[in-house]
C-alpha cells in the first residue's frame, strides 16, 4: 500500500502549504467530490487528507449494493442519479467498476409490509425508477433458491423488485476515482491526519495536519463514521449522529445460485453472490455507539440462522471471512449535507449510515458544485442540518417504534 512502487493513480505529491480546497477523508465521498471539483469546476488545487489509506473505511467495507428504491421524495432522485452514473463513470474514468445490475429483491414478510412497499414503489415509479411489487411465486421464479414455504419464522408474502439495482465493485470505484482525481491534478495525501480545522471571523482559514498547516478557504468534512467526532472535537458543532458498528461476512465460494441482491428487513439480513462465488451477507448494526470494528459470534449465528431459513440450500456452507465497519446513523435515516453554516467555507457530507456507497457518485458531483459556487444545489437542499431543530425530519424509516441510535 505504501511500498516503493508507484500507486495506481500516480506519484506521491508534496504536501503544499495552501490549497483552494481541502477534503478530510479519502473515502468515496471525498474522492468523488475532489474528482468533480477538478473535472467539472476547474478547481484543481485540491488536497485529500486521509489518515490511513484511501478506501480504508466504509469505502472498502460496504457490501457493494447499489439501488434507488428509497422511501422519500427527496432521497429517490439523488440515488437514481447515483445509479445512473455507474456506467458513465466506468467510461469516463476508463476503469472497469464492474457494475452488475442484477436487480434487487426486497422481501416482504407480512401484508403490512406489502402495503408499505406499495407506497415506496409508487414513489420510485413517480421518479422514473423501475420498481414493482411481485408475489411470492414470482419471487421464487426469479430466485429459485428462495424458501417460500409457510413454515419458516417469517414466511415470504412477496417482494419489492427493483431491476436496475445491483452490485458495483467498491474497491474499483476507489481506485478509479483516485486515478481520475490524480489525472486532473488533485493531491491525494495518505497517512496524513487532519488534527484541527481553523477559522477566523466566521470563515474557514485552514487545516492543521500531522504534517503541517495548510491554508485554505474551503474544507469538506467527508470522513464517514469519523465525521461527527471531527465536527464536534475540532469545531464544537454537534451532529444528530450515532456511530455504530455494522458487520458483514462472506461464505466459501459456491457455484452460481443467486443472481439478485436479496434482502429482508424482518430477518435483518441481505445477501448476494459475488463474481467470485462467495455469498456476501450483512446484518443489522450493533445497537450502541462504537469506534471499533470488532466482530461477534452473535452476528455469525444470526446470519447463519436467517440464511438457512430463507435460503435453505446454504445450510452447512461455511463462513470464510467476517469484518466490521462504521455506520454514522441519523434519526431520520437521511444524510446531512450542508455548507457555509455556521462557518463560511465549511462543508459537511455525513450521516450516511449504511447508504454511503450507493450515493457517492451523485453526492460527489453535487457537493463539488456546492463547494465551487457556494450555493446549495436544489438536489441537496432538503438535507440541511437545521431540519432537526425545525422538526422536519425525513421519513426514510416508515414507522419509528423506538428512538434508538440505530432506528
Amino acid at each position, binding site marked *: 500500500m505504501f511500498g516503493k512502487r508507484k500507486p495506481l493513480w500516480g506519484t506521491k505529491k508534496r504536501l503544499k502549504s495552501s490549497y483552494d480546497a481541502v477534503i478530510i477523508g479519502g473515502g468515496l465521498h471525498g474522492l468523488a467530490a475532489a474528482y468533480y471539483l477538478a473535472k467539472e469546476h476547474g478547481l484543481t488545487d485540491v488536497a485529500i487528507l486521509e489518515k490511513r489509506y484511501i478506501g480504508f473505511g466504509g469505502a472498502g467495507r460496504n457490501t457493494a449494493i447499489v439501488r434507488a428504491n428509497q422511501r422519500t421524495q427527496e432521497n429517490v432522485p439523488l440515488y437514481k442519479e447515483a445509479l445512473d452514473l455507474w456506467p458513465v463513470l466506468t467510461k469516463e474514468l476508463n476503469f472497469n467498476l464492474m457494475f452488475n445490475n442484477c436487480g434487487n429483491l426486497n422481501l416482504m414478510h407480512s401484508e403490512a409490509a406489502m402495503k408499505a412497499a406499495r407506497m415506496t414503489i409508487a414513489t420510485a415509479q413517480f421518479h422514473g425508477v423501475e420498481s414493482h411489487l411481485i408475489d411470492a411465486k414470482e419471487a421464487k421464479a426469479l430466485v429459485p433458491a428462495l424458501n417460500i414455504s409457510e413454515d419458516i419464522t417469517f414466511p415470504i408474502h412477496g417482494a419489492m423488485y427493483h431491476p436496475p439495482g445491483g452490485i458495483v465493485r467498491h474497491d474499483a470505484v476507489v481506485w478509479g476515482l483516485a486515478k481520475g482525481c490524480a489525472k486532473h491534478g488533485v493531491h491525494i495525501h495518505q497517512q496524513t491526519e487532519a488534527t484541527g480545522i481553523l477559522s477566523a471571523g466566521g470563515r474557514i482559514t485552514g487545516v492543521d495536519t500531522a504534517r503541517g498547516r495548510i491554508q485554505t478557504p474551503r474544507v469538506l468534512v467527508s470522513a464517514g463514521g*469519523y465525521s*461527527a*467526532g471531527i465536527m*464536534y*472535537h475540532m469545531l464544537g458543532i*454537534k*451532529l*444528530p*449522529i*450515532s*456511530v455504530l*458498528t455494522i458487520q458483514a461476512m462472506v461464505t466459501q465460494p459456491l457455484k452460481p445460485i443467486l443472481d439478485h441482491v436479496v434482502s429482508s428487513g424482518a430477518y435483518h439480513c441481505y445477501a448476494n453472490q459475488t463474481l467470485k462465488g462467495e455469498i456476501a451477507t450483512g446484518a443489522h448494526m*450493533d*445497537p*450502541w*455507539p*462504537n*469506534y*471499533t470494528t*470488532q*466482530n*461477534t459470534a*452473535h452476528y455469525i449465528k444470526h446470519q447463519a440462522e436467517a440464511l438457512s431459513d430463507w435460503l435453505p440450500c446454504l445450510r452447512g456452507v461455511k463462513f470464510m471471512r467476517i469484518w*466490521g465497519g462504521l455506520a454514522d446513523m441519523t*434519526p431520520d435515516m437521511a444524510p446531512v449535507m450542508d455548507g457555509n453554516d455556521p462557518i463560511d467555507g465549511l462543508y459537511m457530507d455525513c450521516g450516511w449510515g449504511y447508504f454511503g456507497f450507493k450515493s457517492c457518485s451523485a453526492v460527489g458531483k453535487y457537493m463539488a458544485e456546492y463547494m465551487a459556487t457556494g450555493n446549495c444545489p436544489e438536489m441537496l437542499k432538503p438535507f440541511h442540518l437545521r431540519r*432537526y*431543530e*425545525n*422538526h422536519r425530519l425525513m421519513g426514510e424509516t416508515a414507522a419509528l417504534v423506538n428512538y*434508538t*441510535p440505530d432506528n
Partner: protein
Amino acid sequence: MALTLTCPVCGKRNGYEFRYGGEDKGPRPAEEGLTPRAWCDYVHMNTCTVGIQKEWWCHRDGCGAWFTTFRDTTKNLEVKPPEAENGQA
C-alpha cells in the same frame, strides 16, 4: 459485539440484554423559555466522543432499571468513572 455492563441491580450481564439510552446530556431542559434549538440539542445532538463517555442504559431484558455508566467507545469496554465524576455517577 461482546460487551459486559454492570446493572446496579443485577450486576455484570451480557450487553445484548441492555438497551442503549443515549449520551448523558444532563437534566432535561426547563420548559420555560425553551427554544427549538435547545430542545433539538437535548433530543438529537451527540458529541460522538472518541474515548470515554457517560451514557444511559436500560436493563431491558432484565430488571428494567435505567442507569448511567462510562464506556470507552474506542475499546467497547465499560470503565470506571473518571476522577472528576466520582460519587456523581
